[in-house]
């Protein structure tokens, strides 16, 4: 541990003395960053999200060089990218599917945090920064989807921006301000383009804080107990760098399969029709990663007191994500990992199933029976956070925790840790 980074290379020494960048990296993701030795492959998804963002930004920058943000040329410029620009089809399909894969890995990353209670003290702020990242991602993805200026781009933009009209008194003014006119039109497209380019950099900023907060207490782990000394940890490099690289290889195989062999499977066919402000498509559906929220939005069909159905729907939709901010205070159980929480473990999977159910409802028309299923799903979604988790905190009897990570590993416990748990017999 003496001083961290050591080298005999005079050039590196010269730089390190003036700008200690090497020891910084070494402490961030290197040999000087002690990491719990029992992280499972579910802990790979953070680095995968980082990879997805890098891929999106690299392809996005070159796409921006070919794209024209004008209602008359946007659709044509995207088709020109697909047909005439060298490798344009490849870059565009990578960017398009990259968005979906970013959400896939981030959702798994979030659910991993929920299963293993990673959000609990002292990592609440780390979790909340993660929710900020998720919100920024959603805004970026939404505005990016508008840019090709297809039918679903246009109508998605119109419907989602119209949500803000539900705000009492100032709603209409806000919508007109968002549009820069009286409908989704050229000013809207232009500002969405500007913001779509800007937001990823804000996202990077949020990620810096996310990782900063992570380093304060280190990663949580599948056992949910804190590391108690060197016997519980291994250096991040080379153990987790190489494991992350392997995970990236696996991720890229799935990603390449989508990009090269089913690039349009996660998109909507109708978005290959240029936007027409006079014709609404038969089914307006958002991208798949927004479907559960869309189902929640549409599940409210009745006014309550002075609140309109529309307003309640909007509140619930945003609330379904914002509620994650207070998750660390809703779940008061002293035990983090579901490995030792027999009931929470079951209910976690019920919650996942509920999210998938809501997604399915969101992809279908807002009519019975989907409507009722969506309403039930919405109620359960909020009940999980507001009723089930607080009650479980009191009523559930957790199984006994091991004394330390190394002890647990010695006993050979922990099937939930997956493949990596087995080779760890050394104390």
């Amino acid at each position: 541990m003496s001083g961290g980074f050591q080298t005999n290379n005079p050039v590196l020494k010269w730089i390190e003395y003036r700008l200690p960048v090497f020891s910084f990296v070494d402490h961030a993701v290197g040999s000087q960053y002690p990491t719990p030795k029992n992280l499972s492959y579910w802990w790979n998804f953070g680095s995968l999200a980082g990879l997805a963002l890098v891929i999106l930004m690299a392809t996005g920058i070159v796409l921006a060089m070919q794209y024209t943000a004008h209602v008359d040329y946007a659709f044509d410029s995207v088709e020109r990218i697909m047909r005439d620009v060298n490798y344009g089809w490849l870059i565009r399909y990578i960017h398009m599917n990259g968005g979906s894969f970013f959400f896939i890995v981030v959702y798994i990353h979030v659910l991993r945090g929920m299963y293993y209670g990673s959000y609990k003290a002292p990592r609440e702020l780390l979790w909340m920064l993660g929710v900020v990242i998720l919100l920024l991602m959603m805004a970026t993805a939404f505005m990016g989807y508008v840019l090709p200026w297809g039918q679903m781009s246009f109508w998605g933009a119109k419907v989602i921006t119209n949500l803000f009209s539900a705000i009492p008194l100032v709603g209409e003014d806000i919508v007109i301000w968002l549009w820069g006119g009286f409908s989704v039109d050229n000013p809207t497209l232009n500002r969405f383009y500007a913001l779509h380019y800007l937001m990823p950099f804000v996202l990077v900023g949020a990620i810096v804080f996310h990782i900063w907060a992570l380093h304060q207490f280190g990663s949580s782990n599948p056992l949910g107990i804190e590391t108690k000394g060197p016997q519980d940890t291994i250096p991040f490099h080379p153990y987790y760098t190489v494991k992350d690289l392997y995970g990236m290889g696996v991720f890229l195989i799935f990603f390449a399969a989508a990009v090269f062999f089913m690039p349009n499977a996660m998109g909507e066919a109708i978005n290959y029709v240029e936007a027409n402000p006079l014709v609404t498509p038969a089914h307006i559906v958002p991208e798949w990663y927004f479907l559960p929220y869309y189902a929640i939005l549409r599940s409210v069909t009745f006014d309550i007191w002075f609140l309109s159905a529309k307003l309640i729907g909007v509140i619930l939709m945003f609330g379904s994500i914002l509620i994650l901010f207070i998750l660390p205070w809703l779940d008061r159980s002293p035990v983090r990992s579901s490995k030792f929480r027999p009931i929470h473990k079951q209910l976690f999977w019920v919650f996942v199933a509920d999210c998938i159910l809501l997604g399915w409802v969101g992809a279908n028309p807002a009519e019975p029976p989907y409507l009722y299923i969506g309403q039930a799903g919405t109620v359960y979604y909020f009940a999980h956070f507001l009723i089930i988790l607080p009650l479980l905190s009191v009523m559930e009897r957790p199984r006994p925790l091991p004394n330390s990570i190394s002890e647990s590993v010695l006993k050979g416990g922990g099937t939930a840790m997956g493949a990596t748990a087995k080779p760890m017999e050394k104390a």
Partner: protein
Amino acid sequence: MAAIGRTLGELKGMTDTARPAHGAEGETRRDFLYLLAGGMGAVGTVAAVWPLVDSMNPAADVLALASTEVDLSPVEDGMSITVTWRGNPVFIRKRTGPEIEEAQAVNLADLPDPETDAARVQKPEWLIMLGVCTHLGCVPKGQKPGDPKGEFGGWFCPCHGSHYDTSGRIRKGPAPTNLEIPPYEFIEDTMIRIG
């Protein structure tokens, strides 16, 4: 990337202090693995970056528009027109007899970039060349009747003072070569296709 593979090995060696070194054979096999992974990673990264770089090269539609047809019939002796080809000006001048004679009479030894007039035209009266100064890309003066034509009666680039003669050859000033001749052909007597 291979360097990263090696660094990976070195740093790993550092953490490996608790144990005596593995057998030499194991070491070699391990180093080979690191090298292989690093090498393939490097190849993969370059292969992934290339499409991004190549996307900035001219696209198929840009390359396809690389020909322009020009009708020369309205151009009279001593008159110049400028047309656009690939986004650049092309100077077309119907030269007068004295201009042609002057261009042909020049001693090649006097030229910074020796080239006969005959090599620069398909028909002596028609001089067709890119109107882009070979110094730094400005458009030389000399197309309009009132323009300065430089000391050699051809074209004059106002940016840095390059003088071109009646064959568009550089005679004085910083430009290194003669004005470029684009590929063109006469498809009729007074009709050319550039590109």
